C-alpha cells in the first residue's frame, strides 16, 4: 500500500467516524439526517476502495438515497408546522441526558470496542474465504458477476427470504397507517419537469443495471432501488396513481418478486430435487427472470414505503364517511 492510498484511506475512515459522530450528536435533527446521507455517500466511496462496487451501488441507492428520503419524509411528518416555517427544525428538546451517568456506557463501550479491535487485528492477514469455491462454480452458476452468482444462485435462499422481509416491512407499514391519495399539485414547474424528464431515464438505467448485473456490478437490488427512486421522485412531484389501480393490481406488482421466487423454488424442488437448484444450461435465464421480477417488486415496494401507508385503506375509509 503506497503512502498516498494510505493517507486517503485514513482520511476517509476518519471522515466516516466524524460524520457518524456528528450525525448522532448534533442537536438539530434535520442536520443530523443530512449528515447521515453524506455519511452514506462516503460509505459508498469506502466500498469502492474495498473493491466492492456492487455494495457501493446498493449503498448509494438504498443506504444513503432511499433511507435518507424515508428519514426526511418522517421528519417532515413529525414536525409538520415547524418544517414550513424554517429550514431548521427546532432542536430536540432533550437530546441526551436520559442517563445521568453517561460515562458508564461510554467506558464500557470503549473497552468492548478496544477488545473488538484487538480481535479484528488478530485475524490472519491473508484469507481467501470462499472465493476459490465461488470462482470454481461461477461457470455453471448462470452469472459471471460473482456477487450476482452468490445472491441469486449459491445463496439464493437468503435472497428469497430477504425479499419477503421487504414485503413484510410494507405489510407492517400498511397495517399501521393509511396513505393520502389525493392528487397534489406539483410544487412547481421545475420539479414537475424534472420528474417527467428523469422517470424514463431512471427506468432505462434500472433496466441497464438489471441486464448488466449478470456479468458486471449491478443487479436486481440496485436496479430496484433506481426504480424506487423514480417512484419517490414522482410522488414528490405530486403524482398519485389512479385509485382503481390501488387494490389488486398494486398488490400483484408488490408480490411478483417473492411469488416468482417461491414458484421457481417449488418447480426446482419438483424437477431437480433440491430447492433453487437450476439446471446449468437454464441458470442464466432463470436468474434473469428472478431478477426482473425482484426488481419490479423492490422498486414498487420502496416507493410504497416512501408513501408510508395503505392506499386502499384510505380509499375505503373515505367511502364510509
Amino acid at each position, binding site marked *: 500500500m503506497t503512502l498516498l492510498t494510505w493517507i486517503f484511506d485514513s482520511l476517509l475512515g476518519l471522515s466516516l467516524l466524524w460524520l457518524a459522530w456528528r450525525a448522532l450528536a448534533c442537536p438539530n435533527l434535520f442536520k443530523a439526517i443530512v449528515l447521515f446521507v453524506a455519511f452514506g455517500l462516503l460509505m459508498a466511496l469506502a466500498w469502492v476502495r474495498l473493491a466492492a462496487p456492487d455494495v457501493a451501488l446498493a449503498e448509494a441507492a438504498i443506504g444513503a438515497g432511499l433511507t435518507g428520503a424515508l428519514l426526511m419524509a418522517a421528519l417532515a411528518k413529525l414536525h409538520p408546522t415547524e418544517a414550513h416555517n424554517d429550514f431548521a427544525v427546532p432542536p430536540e428538546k432533550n437530546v441526551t441526558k436520559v442517563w445521568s451517568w453517561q460515562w458508564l456506557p461510554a467506558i464500557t463501550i470503549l473497552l468492548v470496542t478496544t477488545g473488538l479491535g484487538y480481535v479484528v487485528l488478530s485475524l490472519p492477514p491473508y484469507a481467501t474465504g470462499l472465493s476459490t469455491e465461488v470462482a470454481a462454480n461461477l461457470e455453471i452458476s448462470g452469472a459471471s458477476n460473482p456477487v450476482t452468482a452468490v445472491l441469486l444462485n449459491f445463496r439464493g435462499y437468503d435472497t428469497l427470504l430477504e425479499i419477503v422481509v421487504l414485503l413484510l416491512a410494507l405489510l407492517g407499514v400498511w397495517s399501521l397507517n393509511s396513505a393520502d391519495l389525493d392528487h397534489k399539485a406539483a410544487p412547481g414547474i*421545475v420539479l414537475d419537469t424534472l420528474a417527467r424528464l428523469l422517470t424514463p431515464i431512471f427506468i432505462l438505467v434500472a433496466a441497464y443495471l438489471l441486464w448488466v448485473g449478470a456479468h458486471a456490478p449491478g443487479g436486481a437490488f440496485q436496479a430496484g432501488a433506481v426504480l424506487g427512486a423514480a417512484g419517490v421522485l414522482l410522488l414528490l412531484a405530486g403524482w398519485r396513481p389512479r385509485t382503481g389501480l390501488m387494490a389488486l393490481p398494486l398488490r400483484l406488482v408488490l408480490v411478483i418478486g417473492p411469488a416468482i421466487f417461491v414458484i421457481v423454488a417449488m418447480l426446482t424442488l419438483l424437477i431437480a430435487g433440491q430447492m433453487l437448484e437450476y439446471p446449468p444450461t437454464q441458470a442464466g435465464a432463470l436468474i434473469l427472470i428472478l431478477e426482473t421480477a425482484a426488481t419490479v417488486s423492490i422498486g414498487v415496494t420502496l416507493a410504497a414505503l416512501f408513501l408510508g401507508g395503505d392506499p386502499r385503506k384510505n380509499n375505503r375509509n373515505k367511502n364510509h364517511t
Partner: protein
Amino acid sequence: MNPNDYLSAALLITGAVFFLAGTLGLLRFPDVYTRLHALTKADNVGLGLMVVGLAVQAESWSVVGKLLLIWWLVLIAGASVAHLIASGALQRGIRMWKP
C-alpha cells in the same frame, strides 16, 4: 506517462480546484442563496472538467457516453435542486444577504 495522461491530469486538477472553490464558497458565503450560487456553478464546471479528463482515458465511445450522461444528470439534478431550495427559502421568508 504519455501526453494523454498529462492532459487528463491537468484537467482533473483544474476540476478539483473548481470543487475546492465551490466548497469554500459553501462554507464561507453569508446566506443560502450565495452558497447555492457558489456550489452549483463551481461544481458543475469542476465536474465537467473531470468528466473530460476521464473521457480522454476512456477505452471506448460508450464509456465516454456514460460519462457525459453522468455529467448531464448531475447538471440537471443540481440545477433543479438548487432552484427548489432557493424557492423554498424565498417562500419561508429568508432574506437575501445585503453587503
